[in-house]
């Protein structure tokens, strides 16, 4: 099983920041694979750069590098998900299309996100096959309990 993490499910939100840890724990214990994309990694770096102090930034980015070098996180690249971009662009705003396009890949089982506006409550996505893959970390934990 492969679970794609949106940036909103990897950085602490205002609500339930602890759920990202529980979700990662569940995935790794189950022998499943957490997945991100080059786009999400760029976003993580950008958000960390913008929000944290120099010292916090250095620690967080170093840890991210260590995680990446361990090979416990699969990284999907633009070339892999770009074939789905046109379909994704029909359903979500341009800036969210790379995330949905990656979720459309056949080997991705879930997309974890807390983004209500563009994913969870997006009317264009309702009733599509893709919507079934999209879960909040809480929904994912309940469904895989």
């Amino acid at each position, binding site marked *: 099983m492969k679970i794609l993490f949106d940036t909103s499910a990897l950085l602490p939100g205002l609500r339930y920041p602890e759920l990202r840890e529980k979700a*990662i724990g569940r995935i*790794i214990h189950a022998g499943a694979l957490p997945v991100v994309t080059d786009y999400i990694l*760029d*976003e993580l770096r950008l958000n960390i750069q913008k929000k944290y102090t120099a010292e916090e930034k250095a620690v967080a980015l170093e840890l991210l590098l260590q995680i990446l070098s361990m090979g416990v996180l699969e990284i999907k690249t633009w070339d892999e998900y*770009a074939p789905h971009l046109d379909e994704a662009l029909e359903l979500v705003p341009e800036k969210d299309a790379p995330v949905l396009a990656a979720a459309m890949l056949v080997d991705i089982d879930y997309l974890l996100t807390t983004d209500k506006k563009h994913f969870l409550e997006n009317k264009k996505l309702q009733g599509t096959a893709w919507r079934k893959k999209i879960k909040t970390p809480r929904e994912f934990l309940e469904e895989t309990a």
Partner: protein
Amino acid sequence: MPMQTVQVRLTEEQLRLIDEKVNEGIYPSRSEAIRDYVRKAEALELFGRFFEATRKPAFTEEELDRAREELWREKYAPRLKKQKSR
């Protein structure tokens, strides 16, 4: 990567659990099972440290949205445009 041989003491219960996974075909050997457990423990520790380092401050949806917009506009939209013009 070259492997080292070490002696590990495990309880009967721990060994039973490992053998169960080997018998189920999840792991080809006890060694592979133990290596995988160590790898998972390392991964969890690293993720835990990353989450601890990024525990505060929390991000608002607007902040995440703005950063995504910036990234799309400056790096990925030009890439898509270039790809489509080929």
